């Protein structure tokens, strides 16, 4: 075999070797990263597995709260009404015991990381950006936002 051909072949192998080595390194790196993410995903899953169901239960809690707010004055001390309110409390306690916590709203400063603005108010006695009312409560589950609080925010011109 002429020397030239041999060299060309050597070069070709050299390139091929470099390419394959590169591919192997990448695949290896991919795999290491994949494994790390997989572990993260798994630990997150364990931590937030409940979040889907909790999210779906939140509107039920909202409605309990609304119902409690609208109890007609004449039956407010009725023991049946008091019992129903106790059920609301019970539901809340179950969720709180599972890592749910309520986001603070009225009186605190609006923060889009936790609050969603539905509208604005103009109250001169309050500072700009203060939350004036809560339209729907927001929640964190084990410290992670699962639903922002829906609020009205003070806005001074």
């Amino acid at each position, binding site marked *: 075999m002429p020397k030239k051909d041999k060299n060309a072949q050597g070069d070709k192998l050299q390139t091929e070797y470099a390419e394959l080595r590169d*591919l192997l390194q990448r695949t290896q790196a991919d795999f290491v990263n994949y494994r790390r993410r997989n572990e993260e995903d798994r630990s997150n899953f364990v931590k937030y597995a409940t979040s889907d169901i909790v999210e779906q239960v939140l509107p039920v809690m909202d409605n309990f709260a609304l119902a409690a*707010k609208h109890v007609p004055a004449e039956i407010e001390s009725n023991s049946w009404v008091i019992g129903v309110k106790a059920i609301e409390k019970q539901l809340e306690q179950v969720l709180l015991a599972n890592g749910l916590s309520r986001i603070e709203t009225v009186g605190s400063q609006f923060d889009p990381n936790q609050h969603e603005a*539905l509208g*604005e108010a103009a109250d001169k006695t309050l500072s700009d950006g203060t939350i004036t009312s809560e339209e729907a409560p927001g929640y964190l589950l084990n410290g*992670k936002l699962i639903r922002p609080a829906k609020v009205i925010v003070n806005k001074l011109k």
Partner: protein
Amino acid sequence: MGKIIGIDLGTTNSAMAVMEGAEPKVIANAEGNRTTPSIVAESKAGERLAGQVAKRQAVINYENTIFSAKRLIGRAFDDAEVKKDIELMPFKIVKSGAGVKIKMGEKEYSPAEISAMVLGKLKADAEAYLGEPVTEAVITVPAYFNDAQRQATKDAGKIAGLDVKRIINEPTAAALAYGLDKKKEEKVVVYDLGGGTFDVSILELGDGVFEVKSTNGDTHLGGDDFDQKIIDYLADEFKKEQGIDLKADTAALQRLKEAAENAKIELSSKSESEINIPFITADASGPKHLNIKMNRAKLEDIVGELIKKTLKPCEAALKDAGVKKTDINEVILVGGMTRMPAVQAAVKEFFGKEPLKGVNPDEVVAIGAAIQGGVLGGEVKDVLLLDVTPLSLGIETLGGVFTKLIEKNTTIPTNASQVFSTAADNQTSVEISVLQGEREFAADNKSLGRFILDGIPPAPRGIPQVEVKFDIDANGIVHVTATDKATGKEQKITITASSGLTDEEIEKMQKDAEAHAEEDKKRKELVDLKNMSDALVYTAEKTLKDAGDKANTDDKKAVEDKVEELKKLKDGEDKEAMQKAYDELSEAIQKVGAAMYSQPEGEAAAGDEKAEDAKSDEPVEGEVVDEEETK
């Protein structure tokens, strides 16, 4: 070198994906969502916000919250679209040279700079996910984007710190995601109904390129319009019933919006949805509840006009491309709204073709961009195209059972091993019969070859450990090795590439397995029970012998009787009787065992153990390589 990410920079929402191994994977943002609103804002405090966070504060900061920047990117101030936006948008659009700038906070930004903020957020979230810097991207744009718009999009990437390796058309990305390859001559329609825009494109594939033959659409028609129609309907119904206008009440409207969206989603899979919003409002007479049942027909009636509106552009696109409906080979659906069955039906009826489904329509463009990124980055190469085993591989074990070591669809190269034992006392050789297929019994599967491992030192059944190892290399060549762990003696066989099964044969075998699954399962249960009975009889007899005088005669007698009974039954077909005898013997033997040992776990050996635990390194009772060899 890092990875090239694929970005679908949308008008309302954006998404991103990356090649992971040989598969595209959508990257969720820091908040955990798979799409990110294409919205940026500057808060009163001068803080820059992007994505969901910007959206949440839009209501109280509308003049500094910028959305739909894509409508403005690369456009001249005199464009009709810009004129329209100046009227529609709550933020300020100003002239800058021939182009436009958008006012946010105290400063003016070009649309490219605004888009760069969205891209920056995506970049940062991708880096957090990948755990490495991201510097390169493929970004998609609508097929109708001109050079200026494409250049401006590229600039946006650059500002965000991304080297944009390529700008590709959204419909092309969608076609890539569906694996349509440009080698085949094909005409493809991409129907893209997004949050705020509708686009239809006719693509021609072939000669190594994707050519966009024509595009059409409606830049102000999308999912938001559909939602609004549903909200209007619900609010009207409520007003008719209760005389209260819900749209005037912010909180009520918000709940209505959510309910409308839920109903829309629910009606994509169900025929009826109950929209139930208790205590939605109140008047002097007390609280009011909204409860409206909506069926799919009603929804389709409400939004029918909007769906119809998408068909005219389809007609025009076909005409411009000079293509007849009958020439179309594939129809691809893009955008969340195409999940609606009525939309799918309308598209199907119009083009006379079942649209392609399977890839999430919200993510299909980003996935296509990631695939393009993979090609550019050299990750999608022929060398790396990994194959899978089409059928399971394994060996024959006691009772003619096929024990799989490698399940079908496992990516190769791969290997697997399992430890087996002998079926009889003093068995000195085992036969390894290598099989391929999906059926439960060896006889129903294809034999690939067999060999014998001998020279196993005589020992009671279940004691020798024979490790069987399967190794498939990248070419599909199977090496099977059996090793006696005590002596290290081994035997092996090499089987070349699936022994030449054709695709048809493979398919037939897979179908066969499905067809016989039920009957095979029943037979397998019987054989398993037989094997277990066999093992229990053996253990029981051994226990009796070992117990000698330690156990009381009555207990021993009971075991002897039960052993005889099980022996009679175990070769029959009466599963229930066999199971009963098996349970009774297990119970009887435990009494004897208890008398023998103070430690209860030492009793009755492994007679009760299930034969399935193949993962452990111990030889598993009941899973015995073969039995014939011993007789």
